[in-house]
């Protein structure tokens, strides 16, 4: 490594780091990106749904060569109890558009592609290199990073911390707190392979159409959590995530939860005959707006999951990561082109841009939901799913009992489980946190 100074060092080559590095390199800044994996993506895990608009804002013609799996035409939300699911399915031919809105992707491949774009734009990407700590000057400004390679400090005007949810640099330097166990979910995930035509038949798809299922209910055993099943071209990503605090309190075993999810009578037929080729685990930041740390300082900014910019309610993360990376890159470029220094004051421009975007607006909108789900998880993930399943079965089953009796039984079961007051309060609080 030459000891020349960079305009910016980006730590991490995930969604946010690649967006930041690309947007700066493209504008002619001298960018060094460090990635601890063998190649970009080899440490990263996602479901994964890619939201096209946010990538299009960075690389308009990404559809030409990005590794995309299927474009989504159908989304299913399933509320599950132990033997049933009650579902809402949305499918629309409108999603078979010229420039589809959402795709499934495979992160290890996608990140490699994105990283290639960074190199094409003129950025230097150094893989197999872990940044070990930040370097500071006497005035308390970040001036670069130390790595586990020989050669001492690498210097830059600004460091972009794109190190993901489990970033060590920022937390160890005291720039932000370590994520709390009630603000992060542990997700475990498997890749199930099967022929393309089998997937198409099972989900009613043709061509590159795709379908995703999000599932909540007793599968998370009363903990705040969600299961998912996403169709790729020749594989299905299946996984489940629960808050770490819930897992620790319940001493629950995440891969047993995943196995039980896979064995659920609604899921098992969809996976039958598949070959499992990988098992992965990763944290997801779920604290929302209230968990967002300080986003900028003297010589540094933080983007993506490291900054808890993740919308757990809508299962969006990569798009917030990409957008925050892009905006950090834009802010740094603007400061630089005005001849400004990378001071805290000048870098506040990054937050200014971010505040105006959907990233902050969406996170503010749902700011009360994470704590609601956390404190009331048993009702939302155990009691209601069971009750709703019973209600649906009461509605569907035909056995000669008068309908009015069934309806009364359904209403009584809700009141018995949660009391009238409990039902009203749950409804009001849910609505308020959604507003």
């Amino acid at each position, binding site marked *: 490594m030459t000891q020349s100074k960079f305009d910016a060092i980006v730590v991490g080559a995930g969604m946010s780091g690649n967006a930041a590095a690309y947007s700066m390199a493209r504008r002619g800044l001298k960018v060094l990106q460090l990635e601890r994996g063998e190649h970009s993506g080899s440490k990263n895990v996602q479901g994964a749904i890619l939201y096209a608009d946010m990538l299009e804002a960075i690389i308009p013609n990404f559809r030409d060569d990005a590794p995309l799996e299927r474009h989504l035409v159908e989304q299913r939300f399933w509320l599950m109890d132990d033997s049933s699911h009650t579902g809402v399915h949305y499918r629309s031919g409108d999603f078979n558009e010229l420039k589809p809105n959402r795709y499934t992707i495979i992160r290890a*491949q996608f990140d490699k592609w994105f990283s290639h774009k960074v190199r094409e734009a003129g950025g230097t990407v150094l893989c*197999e290199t872990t940044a070990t700590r930040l370097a500071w000057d006497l005035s308390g400004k970040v001036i670069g990073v130390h790595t586990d*390679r020989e050669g001492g400090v690498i210097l830059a005007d600004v460091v972009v911390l794109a190190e993901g*949810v489990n970033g060590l640099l920022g937390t160890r330097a005291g720039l932000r707190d370590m994520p709390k166990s009630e603000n992060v979910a542990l997700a475990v995930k498997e890749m199930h392979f099967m022929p393309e035509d089998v997937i198409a038949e099972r989900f009613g798809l043709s061509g590159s159409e795709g379908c995703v299922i999000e599932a909540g209910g007793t599968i998370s055993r009363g903990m705040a959590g969600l299961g998912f099943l996403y169709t790729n071209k020749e594989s299905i990503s299946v996984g489940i995530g629960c808050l770490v605090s819930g897992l620790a309190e319940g001493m629950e075993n995440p891969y047993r939860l995943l196995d039980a999810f896979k064995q659920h009578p609604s899921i098992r037929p969809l996976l039958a005959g598949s070959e499992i080729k990988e098992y992965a685990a990763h944290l997801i930041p779920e604290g929302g707006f209230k968990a967002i740390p300080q986003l900028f300082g003297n010589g540094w900014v933080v983007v993506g999951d490291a900054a808890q910019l993740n919308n757990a309610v809508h299962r969006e993360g990569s798009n917030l990561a990409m957008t925050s990376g892009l905006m950090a890159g834009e802010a740094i470029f603007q400061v630089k082109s005005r001849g400004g220094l990378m001071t805290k004051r000048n870098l506040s421009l990054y937050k200014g841009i971010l505040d105006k975007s959907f990233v902050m607006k969406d996170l503010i909108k749902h700011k009360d939901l994470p704590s609601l789900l956390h404190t009331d998880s048993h009702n939302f993930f155990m009691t209601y799913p069971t009750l709703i399943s019973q209600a649906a079965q009461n509605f569907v089953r035909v056995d000669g009992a008068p309908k009015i009796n069934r309806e009364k039984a359904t209403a009584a079961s809700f009141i018995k489980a949660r009391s009238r007051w409990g039902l009203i309060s749950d409804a009001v609080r849910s609505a308020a946190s959604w507003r």
Partner: protein
Amino acid sequence: MKTTIIERIEDKLYQNRYLVDTGRPHITVRPHLSPSPSLLALTKICPAKCYELNEIGQVAIVSDGCLECGTCRVLCEASGDIKWNYPRGGFGVLFKFG
């Protein structure tokens, strides 16, 4: 009737690619007489089953199968129960799909 196929964690991890940095574990457990509740929880919630109770009731780690998720760090680093680092660049789990 419900059938349950218990899949072994070893079989799951066997599907993955790893480059183990032999002799340089990236996570270590602080020596203790009896484990704290959080440390004990890791024997259940670590997704790679890296933590296990030994014969004298202490929690021990073998980090070879680690998925680098950070769960144990979130739960036990602040209390000093464990020391956590990323493996050296290029080592550790290497996701083919992620």
